[in-house]
């Protein structure tokens, strides 16, 4: 069966420090991968998605970047965090070659920038 791992669960970082959040999927190949951010009490904002290794689409211009160095690995990064980067970050995957399919979510990382 497929599983998604996302870490760390919580993170407190000072303004101006770098960020690296990692997400890996097991039990499937060539998944579509997604990074979302959720502000308190709000919906999910799509940040990046990827349909293959090295293929990254950015949805919102901002202080973050994403990379997909391996088929089932998706990394969210920042060189210098801002206070506004605080939030709940969720990684998700869906079956790559199937249109009518749901997305499956990791447990999320709660990031607080201080």
């Amino acid at each position, binding site marked *: 069966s497929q599983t998604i791992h996302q870490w760390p669960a919580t993170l407190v970082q000072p303004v101006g420090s770098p960020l690296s959040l990692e997400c890996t999927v097991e039990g499937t190949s060539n998944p579509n991968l997604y990074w979302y951010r959720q502000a308190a009490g709000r919906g999910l904002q*799509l940040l990046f998605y990827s349909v293959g290794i090295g293929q990254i689409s950015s949805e919102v211009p901002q202080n973050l970047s994403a990379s997909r160095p391996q088929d089932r690995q998706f990394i969210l990064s920042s060189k210098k965090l801002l206070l506004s980067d605080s939030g709940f970050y969720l990684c998700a995957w869906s079956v790559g070659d199937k*249109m009518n399919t*749901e*997305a*499956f979510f990791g447990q*999320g990382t709660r990031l607080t920038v201080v």
Partner: protein
Amino acid sequence: EDKVVQSPLSLVVHEGDTVTLNCSYEVTNFRSLLWYKQEKKAPTFLFMLTSSGIEKKSGRLSSILDKKELFSILNITATQTGDSAVYLCAARTSGTYKYIFGTGTRLKVLA
């Protein structure tokens, strides 16, 4: 710009009440409409709707899609405290494989 709007933003009901949550969408190349329940961390999948007028049902939850009017509703009958959560809807687009989420409806069910 692709957009998904949910209403109401929040709702407080008593156990046993029936609630209707609304989701409207405007997306390019619409493919499907999905509903999720988020209690604390990871949203969990409830329904996926691709065809108009066909109700999906799971226990006390049901959902239907209207592709002409571009909306969906999620009904919960005989609500229980365990139904308290944020309910999210998302529109999936073909071609880009994106899931565009709405703002969510926060439901609180009082005992």
